[in-house]
């Protein structure tokens, strides 16, 4: 088990006052709250931070933690000294079974499992409490939103075994992904969360939909964006161009005089629904290279024969 430097995690010196610890914690808690932060590891950091603060905010736990000495380094292999903790009395409240695994092994080796957090559940009171809800992300392809699919979702759930130890249980669920889902939407699987306590009902499982990044499709809500490179003559004269869509390629008419970044809509070809989304094809004008003499000559001919000043509006 690794030693955890709670002072470093909260970002304060070992002799910081309770006030300083509180301020530092609050600042980081706002920064790494999983509902606020976009950082991939926000949830893990917020949890570690909560653990560190649970120790440092409590003068008894902090004193016991300090007793370990200042010579430990974060990540160092740690075993609590045999006589450690004698003479300290912890007054933390009991842990709810649903909170199993909320804190690290390091924390539990020091303070036991009965000292865990009263975290954000808020619904665990009474003996017949609801099991905890679980949240997970499921990554799907954009095509799955068009056609519907079933996906295997791997879940790792901390649970208490018969002797009260925390074990991580792995399970795989096959979940139906309904047609028409969009990024950020949630699928609720009733009763697939933690088991309830007493006669309480089991919690629910919430799966948040996210799309795997695609080479050229960019979903936005119900709509899908795609960049379409065009030659100058296709844009100037108009053309019919093959455009890929998740439903298969379509022939798209490019009107004469299309300019770069102009959005062309393929109505109703976005993510299905009532009404369905649209596909926005974004015209991207590209220039043929002028490497060979013949190519250069052609550009020179255009220069002479096409009087064109794109910077007219910048002149006085």
């Amino acid at each position, binding site marked *: 088990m690794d030693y955890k430097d709670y002072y470093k995690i909260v970002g304060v010196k070992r002799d910081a006052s309770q006030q300083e610890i509180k301020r530092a914690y609050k600042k980081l808690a706002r920064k790494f709250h999983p*509902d606020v932060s976009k950082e991939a590891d926000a949830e893990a950091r917020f949890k570690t931070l909560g653990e560190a603060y649970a120790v440092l905010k409590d003068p008894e736990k902090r004193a016991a933690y300090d007793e370990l000495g200042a010579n430990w380094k974060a990540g160092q292999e740690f075993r609590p000294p045999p006589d450690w903790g004698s003479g300290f009395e912890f007054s933390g409240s009991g842990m709810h079974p649903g909170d199993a695994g909320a804190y690290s092994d390091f924390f539990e080796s020091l303070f036991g499992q009965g000292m865990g957090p009263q975290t954000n559940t808020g619904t665990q009171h009474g003996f017949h409490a609801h099991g905890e809800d679980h949240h997970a992300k499921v990554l799907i392809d954009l095509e799955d939103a068009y056609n519907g699919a079933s996906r295997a979702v791997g879940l790792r759930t901390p649970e208490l075994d018969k002797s009260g130890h925390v074990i991580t249980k792995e399970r795989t669920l096959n979940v139906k992904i309904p047609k028409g889902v969009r990024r950020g939407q949630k699928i609720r699987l009733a009763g697939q969360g933690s088991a309830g306590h007493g006669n309480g009902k089991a919690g*629910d499982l919430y799966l948040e939909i996210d799309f795997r990044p695609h080479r050229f499709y960019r979903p936005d809500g119900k709509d899908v964006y795609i960049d379409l490179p065009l030659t100058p003559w296709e844009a100037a004269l108009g053309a019919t161009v093959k455009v890929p869509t998740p439903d298969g390629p379509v022939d798209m008419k490019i009107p004469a005089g299309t300019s770069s970044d102009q959005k062309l809509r393929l109505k109703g070809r976005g993510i299905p629904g009532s009404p369905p989304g649209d596909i926005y094809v974004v015209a991207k004008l590209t220039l043929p290279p002028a490497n060979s003499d013949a190519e250069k000559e052609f550009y020179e001919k255009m220069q002479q024969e096409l009087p064109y000043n794109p910077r007219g509006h910048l002149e006085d």
Partner: protein
Amino acid sequence: MAKKILSGTLLDEQVHFSLTEFCQVCSSKTEWVVELVDEGILEPSGGKSSRWSFPGNSVSKAQRARRLQHDLEINLAGVALVLDLLDEIEMLRSRISQEV
């Protein structure tokens, strides 16, 4: 081994919950949900609270509100502001990503 395929409920705007159902789904007290509505965090249709109808996406909004309220000790007016600002950031982020 062929495993059963589970079908959940997609919490989109096609799904609607009454106040009682909504409290059950969120495992929260009625008074708290009423507070969320008073604060404008949730906007059920239907006028009177006995006829309220919450669209499916309200569930994750209520869950976010609860986490923010408990974890950061923000009052509900603050939670409402945070959620509005987060929505705005999300909207601006997606606009940026459409322009790359």
